């Protein structure tokens, strides 16, 4: 069983499981499936009284559930990484492997999801990861949602706003992946 679950989960299992989060969250407590709102709640919980930004003044205690959910997400990551580690490296396409080598990165070893070249905590990497995080955090709140809230929940319930968001997200992602990443690596 463990051996079976340790293999990478194919897209046609993983995708439907992620899609089922939408009715599951509705069934548990009428919640709209989306992750990034809890970043707002975390800000609201820790806002010092002298800062006092209106956007973070609301009854965040009602949103404990979303903090519990992401604690679960981290636990799930821990179980997947600790108990069900993939015995083989990520099965990237030949084209992707060539691209990563051309960028001067090593190919991932077994159990590795992100490159040490970018994620090992050197001063330069810390600055880059923090800056990337700022863009993700700022953009996702500005757009009122991230991949889960817009691509999954929004598109599946036919929200026009989510379509605009997805077009923006994909455009930004293409620009970053084709131009920013090669530039930053060099």
């Amino acid at each position, binding site marked *: 069983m463990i051996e079976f679950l340790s293999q990478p989960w194919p897209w046609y299992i993983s995708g439907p499981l992620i899609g089922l989060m939408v009715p599951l969250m509705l069934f548990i407590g009428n919640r709209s*499936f989306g992750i990034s709102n809890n970043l*707002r709640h975390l800000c609201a919980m820790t806002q010092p009284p002298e800062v006092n930004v209106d956007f973070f003044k609301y009854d965040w205690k009602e949103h404990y559930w979303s903090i*519990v959910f992401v604690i679960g997400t981290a636990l799930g990551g821990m179980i997947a990484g600790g108990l069900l580690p993939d015995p083989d490296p990520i099965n990237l396409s030949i084209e992707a492997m060539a691209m990563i080598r051309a960028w001067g990165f090593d190919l991932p070893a077994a159990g590795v999801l992100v490159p040490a070249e970018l994620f090992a905590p050197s001063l330069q990497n810390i600055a880059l990861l923090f800056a990337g*995080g700022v863009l993700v955090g700022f953009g996702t709140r500005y757009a009122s949602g991230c991949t889960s809230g817009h691509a999954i929940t929004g598109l599946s319930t036919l929200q026009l706003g989510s379509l605009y968001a997805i077009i923006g997200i994909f455009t930004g992602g293409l620009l970053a992946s084709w131009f920013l990443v090669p530039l930053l690596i060099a």
Partner: protein
Amino acid sequence: MTRYLPYLLAGVLFGLVLVKSEAASWYRIQEMFHFQSFHMYGILFSAILTAAVSIQILRRIEHKRTLDGQSIEIPCKEDGWIHYSLGGLIFGLGWGVIGLCPGPIFALIGTGSVGALIVLAGALHGTWLYGAYKTRLPH
């Protein structure tokens, strides 16, 4: 406390899938944005399809109730396009560089990645910046 248990379990399932499907991998995200594999598109499209079918079924069930007895309402988003497009663009620029969106940030922290913790610190800072400057931005 027990009323939070379903959320915890749902979160665990989500984190498991994000790591085991490799959606929380920077390599997979770069591969996706360069159209070099169907893997991530397969995940996204089958997730949207599954959610859409579930929503259609839910719409047809009368007297649908949540675990704690509320009546289920299908979520609806506000009108507008400027903040969705611009916010999405900024979010995408970050996602394309660091390869992590909010769900995978938390899942990767669980695997013990210090880098993901730094991304979370940045994301909280970015969220706070938005809150502070919200009224000066076009929406």
